[in-house]
């Protein structure tokens, strides 16, 4: 098991280095960092001085090593646009995105998994209706869902706020939505908007995997032994779908982070996605590259967690690992 984890860790580090290389190239080659930092009136000599001071004349490998070591110490540099430290900007936006993502993940799992199991087992009106709903669900762009939810619940009915986080409570540096009524209300529409697409994906996946597992010999054998249907479907069948389901849910988390860009834009939700969008609009390279590295880091961590979950789920992985 240790060997397995170590191998995975090595792969993760490789991925992180590769992504940081992309981020570094972004930083170094897209536009001139000096020209972005100083005004037009700064003389060439002064620019050269700054260049020398910042080490931009060093060999590229040295620069890359410095870039990576800065990143690993959370030294993210300064935004071209606001002149603020990037770490501060990200830190102030991080909680909003994570809370939004968490809510939509919960929505997608709580609704998606039971609905997926149901549609795999039962045929009939409800099942068909759910299937049609998922097809519509994956076909409507996130932003259109957001717009219509705003129009319906925000503008027409006036029940829910249509932009921003509402009132938040500070827990240290972390601003949370979860402790006020207004915060919860503000979460509902963006949470649903972001959750719908993931929900349909979860449901379709669980359904497909369940259908596969239900065709296996061990389910037929368990049926032939008269195991009651509840245990047959949940304990025997659903458990066997968990490895692929967990894998895809891991990938979906990334999807949630990515689509939060859209949702945050529609609802003016002050999260990292909105920050990223602004930084693209103004070619704010430091923010872009740090965002990129952070997203990759999240992904790598999620993948590691997924791999560890395999150990909990599947004895074949667990026992093979222990023999190594």
């Amino acid at each position, binding site marked *: 098991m240790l060997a397995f984890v170590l191998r995975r860790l090595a*792969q993760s580090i490789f991925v992180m280095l590769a992504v940081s290389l992309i981020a570094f190239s972004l930083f170094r080659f*897209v536009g001139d960092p000096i020209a972005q930092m100083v005004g037009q009136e700064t003389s060439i000599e002064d620019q050269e001085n700054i260049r020398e001071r910042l080490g931009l004349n060093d060999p590229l490998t040295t620069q890359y090593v410095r870039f990576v070591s800065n990143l690993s110490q959370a030294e993210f540099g300064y935004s071209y646009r606001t002149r603020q430290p990037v770490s501060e900007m990200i830190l102030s936006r991080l909680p909003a995105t994570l809370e939004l993502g968490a809510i939509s993940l919960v929505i997608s799992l709580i609704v998606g998994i039971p609905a997926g199991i149901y549609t795999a087992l039962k045929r009939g009106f409800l099942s068909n209706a759910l299937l049609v709903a998922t097809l519509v669900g994956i076909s409507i762009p996130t932003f259109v869902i957001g*717009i219509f939810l705003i*129009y319906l619940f925000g503008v027409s009915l006036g029940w829910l706020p249509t932009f921003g986080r509402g009132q938040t409570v500070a827990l240290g540096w972390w601003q949370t939505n979860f402790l006020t009524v207004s915060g919860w209300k503000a979460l509902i529409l963006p949470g649903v908007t972001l959750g719908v697409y993931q929900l349909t994906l979860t449901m379709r996946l669980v359904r497909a995997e369940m259908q596969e597992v239900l065709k296996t010999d061990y389910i037929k054998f368990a049926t032939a032994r008269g195991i009651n249907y509840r245990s047959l479907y949940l304990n025997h069948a659903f458990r066997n779908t968990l490895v692929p389901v967990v894998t895809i849910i891991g990938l979906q988390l990334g999807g949630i982070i990515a689509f939060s860009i*859209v949702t945050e*834009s529609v609802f003016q939700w002050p999260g990292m996605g909105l920050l990223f969008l602004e930084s693209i609009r103004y*070619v704010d390279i430091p923010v872009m590259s740090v965002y990129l590295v952070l997203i990759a880091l999240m992904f790598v961590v999620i993948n590691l967690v997924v791999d560890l979950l395999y150990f909990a789920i599947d004895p074949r992985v667990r026992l093979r690992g222990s023999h190594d």
Partner: protein
Amino acid sequence: MINAWLRWSRENELAYLFFRNPVAIVAAIIAILCIGGAVLSPWLAATDPYDIASLDIMDSLIPPAWSESGDARFFIGTDDQGRDLLSAILYGTRLSLLVGFLAITFASVLGVTVGLMAGYFGGRFDAIMMRIADIQLSLPAILTALLVDGIAKGLLPRGQHDNLMIVVLTVAIGLSLWVNFARTVRATTFVERNKEYVQSCEIMGMHPFRIMFTHILPNIMGPILVILTVDLAVAVLLEATLSFLGVGVPANQPSLGTLIRIGTEYMFSGEWWIVIFPSAMLILMIISINVLGDFLRDALNPRMR
């Protein structure tokens, strides 16, 4: 002629299942209408929405023809620039589909080639390509697309950027989708590779590329076709999303996403048609493509029958 066609549909499993599936037929008709309308838009549309000279600001924000203050010239109304919305939608659909098709062509050629080689050769090439795919996967589609767009913005001079936007969008969307092809093709190639018909080619001493492209490829067309369809929907969706976010096509050549973004600004003040009609068009198109994708997936999956 008709007899031959009937015999073909009887012998051809896919055709048989298709003509038994009214939902798939309807979806196919809608998809064909969308594509046909898009391709023929220069001839179908009443006005050229890209021709700024022909626009009259006095015509802006006219509601659909059937409402009180409507204008018979503009059947479903106009946008804020005074463009005929119907023409704008036709042209916008054309742009969306063009980007979509170009992007999946790019993604499929890249992905299928990499997937075939990784699945066939295995070993180091496979390991390296799959690591690269992992990195690509850790940057979700929309993020990759935004990033490529951001880089292009930084690298290209201002004026050029708008002109090259379609290329940038194609590359951005294509890059984020090739992994889907590569992974599926790799997995299916891996299965095919161990089948005896491939071994018999290897024993003969056939060149690996000939085995891959003339023997394995025809046998894995099913899954590729499914991904092509599903990813066409994803590509159109991505293009619309990028345009909605304001990083896609330039505003003087509105795609469906751009129209929806413009429409959102006017939605609250009662000009609902600018957002409704392009959204409906987009959703209809994507649903019909997705229905076809689902149909293909079920029809081509032997285990589901």
